[in-house]
């Protein structure tokens, strides 16, 4: 086991998924919207990045567009694509409440997944787009793992700061008001539909950026990577960390990724041992969830900090 390696992996993937948890936190805990389609915005970002940076199709490729643009153009496009998808899905659905919205967003995510699988002209269908271009941090004298862990951490930090600023402003209080009591908020002149829509769209942008970074890290985008499992992962992280606080969302995600990495950190030298570990991981994960949900240590930690 290599502790530096473990630390880097936790920071890289923990920060990356924290961006998703933070956005979900804004939508759900503050905006009162249950979005069960988080993965779709993530996928939209990753695909946008890949399409913008990918070379034009050749040989066996079936995708139509590859712009071969620079990485920053792809990164920006990822944010725009995710936002556009949020506008597209948010406009017709946000009048729905509670579980109805959850179902609809879930359906939208499944539709996007199905589209990516079946419409091979977008991203080669099930083959996906491989060997996605990414900036080489070597020119800055940084090892790749450090650079991408750092980039993910910065993205998380930026997302957290922007969201904190947003929620601390009068605008944030208006959002809280809408969540707590729509009728009352409307009575004092808040445009509920617009506020909800804005929160939904704003929170999709960092998810898109995270998608681009994810594509850079994995160097592959394929429908396999963007299943409902990602959505559930983020939801579990949010529940673990306790809702409503930015620190809680980050802690929950870091703990979840950290646990995954820790379980896998021990090298297994025989197939039998690896098999047992693979089977045991799920059991241990389940037990840990029960324990955390029972005692909610992260939420308690955040509260204690707030009290101090």
């Amino acid at each position, binding site marked *: *086991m*290599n*502790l530096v*390696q473990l630390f880097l*992996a936790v920071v890289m*993937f923990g920060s990356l998924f924290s961006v998703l948890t933070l956005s979900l936190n804004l939508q759900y805990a503050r905006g009162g919207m249950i979005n069960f389609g988080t993965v779709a915005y993530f996928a939209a970002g990753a695909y946008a990045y890949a399409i913008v940076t990918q070379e034009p199709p050749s*040989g*066996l490729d079936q995708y139509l567009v590859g712009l071969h643009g620079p990485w920053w153009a792809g990164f920006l496009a990822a944010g725009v694509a995710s936002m556009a998808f949020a506008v597209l899905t948010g406009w017709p659905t946000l009048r729905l409440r509670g579980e109805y919205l959850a179902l609809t967003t879930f359906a939208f995510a499944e539709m996007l997944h199905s589209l990516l*699988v*079946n419409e091979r002209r977008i991203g080669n*269908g*099930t*083959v*996906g787009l*491989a*060997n996605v271009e*990414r900036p080489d941090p070597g020119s800055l004298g940084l090892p*790749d*793992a450090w650079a991408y862990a750092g980039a993910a951490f910065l993205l998380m930090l930026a997302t957290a700061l922007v969201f904190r600023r947003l929620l601390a402003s009068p605008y944030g209080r208006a959002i809280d008001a809408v969540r707590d009591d729509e009728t009352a908020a409307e009575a004092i002149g808040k445009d509920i539909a617009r506020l909800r829509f804005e929160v939904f769209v704003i929170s999709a942008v960092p998810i898109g950026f995270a998608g681009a970074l994810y594509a850079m*890290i*994995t*160097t*592959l985008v*394929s429908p*396999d*990577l963007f299943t409902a499992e990602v959505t559930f992962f983020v939801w579990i992280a949010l529940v673990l960390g306790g809702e409503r606080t930015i620190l809680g969302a980050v802690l929950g995600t870091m703990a979840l990724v950290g646990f995954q*990495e820790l379980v*896998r*950190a*021990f*090298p*297994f*030298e*025989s*197939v039998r*041992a*690896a*098999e047992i*570990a*693979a*089977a045991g991981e799920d059991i241990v994960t389940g037990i840990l969830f029960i324990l955390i949900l029972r005692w909610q240590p992260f939420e308690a930690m955040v509260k204690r900090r707030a009290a101090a």
Partner: protein
Amino acid sequence: MKTQTIRSMLLKSTLLAGTFAASTLAASAQEVTIGVLVPLTGELGEFGKIVAGAVELGVAEVNAAGGTKCGMIRTVVADTGGNPEVGIREATKMIESEGAVAVVGPTSGVMVALVDLAKRTKTVIMSPYAGTITLNELGGDYVYRTVSSDLGDGAASGLWLSEKGYKRVAMLVQNEESTISPAQVAKDKLAASGIELTDYVIYNPGQPSYQAELVSVLANAPDAIYLAGGQESGVTVIKEATAGGFEGEWLFTADLAVPEIFDAVGAQYLNDRAFVEFADADSSLPEYKAFDALYQEKNGAEPGPFAANSFDMANLIALSLEKADACTGEGINAVIRDIADGGEAVSSFAAGKEAIAAGKDVNYEGASGPLAFDASGTPAGSYSIQQAKDGKWENVKFYPASAFE
């Protein structure tokens, strides 16, 4: 009290981790590490276990022969569940933390995701079953496989369909990369041979029924149906086509080359009428027979699919280490092509080691067949066609690699 416990636990785990790190460092002095990255869980879990087992067998043989110049081979095994993201995380760990010089066993999706990492960290990655056409473009440098490309399956199917003398053929293809790419090649071959393609249907798996897809296929009454589907969808398609009055012949792809299909569909509907095409080691080769005997002796069972290809990976890497100037991925990459092609033919690590020690060039002839790599790091494949007879698959045709030249 509570914090005390947590603190002591943290301390303990740090100590434990430290011990682990220390033991790995101490061990690496006379060992060389190979990562075995396979799906042990998930859809392809069964294949992963066979592959990992055969690599272990190969490594045990190498170590029994005294190990390589770089020391005994140590394996670290990890499960990907078939997920590329997990694959990247695990491979990174193997390379950075465990010092693996090669990572073997990833499935197609994981393999494609690892290409960049392999080239960046100068680590050889090798798969015994990733037929994906994406690697036809990406493979070659640090990226190898001991199985032929999916396109070869298509060529073999196309060859069989045209040799069989069918006039009208329909194609039913599951919407997955591993089924669509060979189907495209087979389709081109049909067109070139002047066979009429009555229907070309791509369907999504997981449906309760495929009647909608079959309506037009059956209406055109083809002589044969080429079915590239998984076991679940394939069985349903065959049953529904039979119920719909299809009386022609079938050609299935590898996924259906299992005995269970006869129970699932009903042997009477398949006997004499159904054929199956799959990549196959030439079982008449002495190298394969030797491997088969060894496998049966150690495991008490017949080698499963891709076991021979996996065994070959272990030998190729061990021989490359033996010959390389340095015990690194870069060293392996520099000599692996020479090991696989040109020189004195050897079929085991022990023989190869001896030949290398005598200063000779070696040509490792694998249990799965000749392994000379093309530009994309892929060997030419050989294929078998089997026919359903009395509720069993029986060999009717073998296409050696030379059949496609």
